[in-house]
């Protein structure tokens, strides 16, 4: 596939890194030479503006399959997408950052207006991140949550603590509820697919897949008291903090937001219904203590500054037993955060990337989720018509992989060894990122 990326922002870089592995990527930006970071990637570069039809012609936009606009400026991205559409009818993906523009482009409310905006996909990284965080917050104790098949199949990731009933047990000896399986374990930042004889150790992060009901049973077994989330504290009232607070409010969770800019505080207070908006700094320990931030069930640090997020998380860790979710922009530092004791590390780039990659994949294979910073992937694979009925135990994978769920018609089946796979089944397969290609090829034959 030939892909043209407009912009050299961080998102553009992340996309280029991922996409250039398998596809022909051209970067278009109005700087004279390509920024240093891109030099170690196998991509070509064209200097010029995305809104300039001449520059797009020079970049041979007409012969590309996909156009990704992710420069720093929203308006430039939108104009670039429109301009490309005038050259050729290729798929366009547009990154935006402002709420208003996103709503203009995406909201269903505006669908009935006369002319649609001519952009195929709009990606707003912050909004995707908000959804990610919201999913995680809504499941007590979980450190990662993904939903499949409209929420009927789910993926939860839990950290194994001292009092866990599966600690130091082999997986085959654990009695899980029906319809739940372990698909992956992260130990010391390394993700692997376990076998029945793998022993679960302290501080392992275990990835479960299953149906909603099954996972609820599991959660009940894990945590004797099913503590409902009642209070959430958000440090940083940027667009992620604002959107998240709005969503949490709707589920009747009491929200406290700490924001250091007074004007922004006013904005938050007048646009949110019930949230407690405090003017102050998230690293002000006295403020955190006097407002009892530590008593919240979940604390979410989403300022736009990684260092500040880390410092906040560490301060709160001193006074709180709640889950701490922290935003990080640089993928490299995510491990650091993890080691420092932050429970959940989330990144807007990763959320956006996942969305983008799905546009590049063949149509019968989708990436539904990236796990552990992209180490693992959940793929959706449709079994072709020619596929003979096969029992799961008889299926030999060419690489490490595990079938997490089968969607057959309207049913969700969590497979065990005797389950028979049939043509037309939708499989959710958990695999390692480096093996994803092998698995894809296995089924697309």
């Amino acid at each position, binding site marked *: 596939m030939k892909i043209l990326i407009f912009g050299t922002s961080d998102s553009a870089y992340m996309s280029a890194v991922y996409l250039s592995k398998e596809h022909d990527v051209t970067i278009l930006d109005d700087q004279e030479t390509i920024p240093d970071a891109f030099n170690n990637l196998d991509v070509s570069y064209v200097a010029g503006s995305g809104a300039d039809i001449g520059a797009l012609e020079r970049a041979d936009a007409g012969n590309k399959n996909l156009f990704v606009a992710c420069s720093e400026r929203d308006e430039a991205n939108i104009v670039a997408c429109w301009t490309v559409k005038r050259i050729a009818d290729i798929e366009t993906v547009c990154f935006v950052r402002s709420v208003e523009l996103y709503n203009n482009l995406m909201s269903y409310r505006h669908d009935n207006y006369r002319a649609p905006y001519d952009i195929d996909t709009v990606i707003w990284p912050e909004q995707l991140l908000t959804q990610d965080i919201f999913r995680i917050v809504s499941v007590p104790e979980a450190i990662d949550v993904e939903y499949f098949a409209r929420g009927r199949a789910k993926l939860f990731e839990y950290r194994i603590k001292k009092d866990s009933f599966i600690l130091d047990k082999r997986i085959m000896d654990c009695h899980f509820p029906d319809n739940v399986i372990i698909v992956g374990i992260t130990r010391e930042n390394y993700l692997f697919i376990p076998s029945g004889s793998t022993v679960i150790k302290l501080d392992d992060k275990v990835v479960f897949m299953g149906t909603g009901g099954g996972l609820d049973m599991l959660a009940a077994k894990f945590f004797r008291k099913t503590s409902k989330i009642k209070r959430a504290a958000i440090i940083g009232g940027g667009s992620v903090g604002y959107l998240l607070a709005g969503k949490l409010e709707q589920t009747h969770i009491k929200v406290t937001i700490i924001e250091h800019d*007074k004007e922004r*505080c*006013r904005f*938050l*207070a*007048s646009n949110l*219904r019930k949230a*407690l*908006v*405090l*003017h*102050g700094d998230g690293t002000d320990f006295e*403020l955190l203590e006097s*407002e009892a931030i530590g008593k919240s069930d979940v604390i979410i640090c989403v300022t736009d500054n990684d260092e500040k997020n880390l410092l906040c998380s560490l301060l709160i860790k001193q006074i709180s037993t709640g889950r701490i979710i922290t935003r990080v922009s640089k993928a490299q530092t995510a491990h650091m955060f993890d080691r420092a004791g932050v429970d959940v590390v989330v990144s807007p780039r990763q959320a956006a990337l996942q969305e983008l990659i799905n546009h590049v994949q063949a149509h019968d294979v989708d990436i539904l989720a990236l796990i552990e910073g992209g180490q693992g992937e959940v793929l959706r694979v449709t079994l072709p018509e020619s596929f003979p009925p096969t029992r799961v135990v008889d299926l030999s994978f060419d690489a490490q992989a595990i079938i997490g769920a089968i969607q057959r018609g309207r049913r969700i089946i969590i497979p065990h060894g005797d389950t028979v796979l049939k043509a037309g089944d939708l499989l959710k397969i958990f695999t390692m990122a480096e093996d994803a290609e092998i698995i894809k090829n296995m089924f697309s034959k």
Partner: protein
Amino acid sequence: MKREYIFSALGLILVAFGGIMLSPIIIALIEKNYSGVLPFLVASGVSLTVGGILQKAGGFLRNFDKLSRTGGFLIVALAWLGTAAMGAIPYLFFGLSPLDAYFESVSGITTTGATVFIDFSLYPESLFFWRSLSQWLGGMGIIVLFVAILPQFKVAGRQMFFAEAPGPTEERVTPRIAHTAKALWLVYFSLTVLEVFCLVIAGMAPFDAVCNSLSTMAAGGFSPHPQSIMGYGSPAVVWIITAFMFLAGSNFALQYRAVVKRNVKFLAKNEELRGYSLIILTVSLLLALVLFTTEDGAWHIALREALFQVVSIVTTTGFSSSDFALWALAAQTLIFSVMLVGGCAGSAAGGIKVVRVILGAKYMRREIIQLVHPRIILPIKIDGKSVPETIQFQILGFLFFYIFLLTLSAYAVTMLEGSASIGLVGTAATMGNIGPGLGEIGPMGTYGNLSAPTKIIFIVNMVVGRLELIPFLAMLHPDFWRLGR
């Protein structure tokens, strides 16, 4: 402000008012009561003449586009005092002293409904009609009326429109002020006609139905019957009037929008309307409970009486379906408690207005929360939108002044009359444009026996309360008179 503007505008208003004053003659002719013709001919003639002289003094100015803010205030205030004076002339023909006539007229036009009449049988129908009509004219606001019907007030109307009804929000149903005024009058007029129709169906005599409807929609409270609504002895009438009083006390602009857009859902979202309904329901239920335990009678009668009386007082109408001055003290206290609330902003009701009460309550709540969370940013919201600080302070200032003037007047009247109940309740009833108070000045009583200074104080209360203090407060500042001269 230019003197010419004031004279010409006032002249115009008086001429138009003089024209309207001819209408009771129709009633007199229908009822074949020819003694009722002369007073209105004279009053109308005086109004037209004074109006003409004022216009001449003002040089027949027709373009008020450059009217200043203070000029607007002055015109509004003088228009109310002037039209009330013209409206008082017919009463003089029936043996009322000039002060009593002016009291009755001001009470009418400010939709208060406090009366000095003692024996209702002395007066002809045309006078009762005029009493109710003057309330109806004042109900929507004299200025709103003239902005709607006089094209000269196209632009300047805006200044005066908001000087007359300086609610906390500048609300317009249509972009043009004259259209807005017309739309509001349309709602007002249609509801009045509807009420007349309902009352006639319920068996009331057409003349009484018209008079009572005019008073109801204006939230006024003058009834041609000496015993007010109680005199008709009909539960159906009580229920109909309760419903229309409720409408008279809610925002007309909102009702207009609900009808035009054929959508009533947003009414439920309106915080003021919700608060208004909630106050009425809560106090009515409490009052019903008190009535049920202290008075004889079935629970449904207690409920009907309670609801009627609470709506009547909250909307500042002042009708009574029974003599509440004779009720138990607990019931009277409940009645007094809602006297200070008033209806919704942009309605015919007087008083403090529900939206100001809500805002005051929210302000207090914020003060408490700020003690617990010193760093909190907590805007005060009405209908989910933050109220700008300037408006917050304006409303707080209003509340403060209202209570201040209330206290001042209550002290003065208490000393004059030697009765704390007349002092406090009478002040609340006149300043809130409610009408009947408790005790001697209760629904079956009269203001006629009070001393002259008390009546003057009450007249001032009524006008000041009706114009929501602001134009008068502005006049107290010396610069008001200096600027633009």
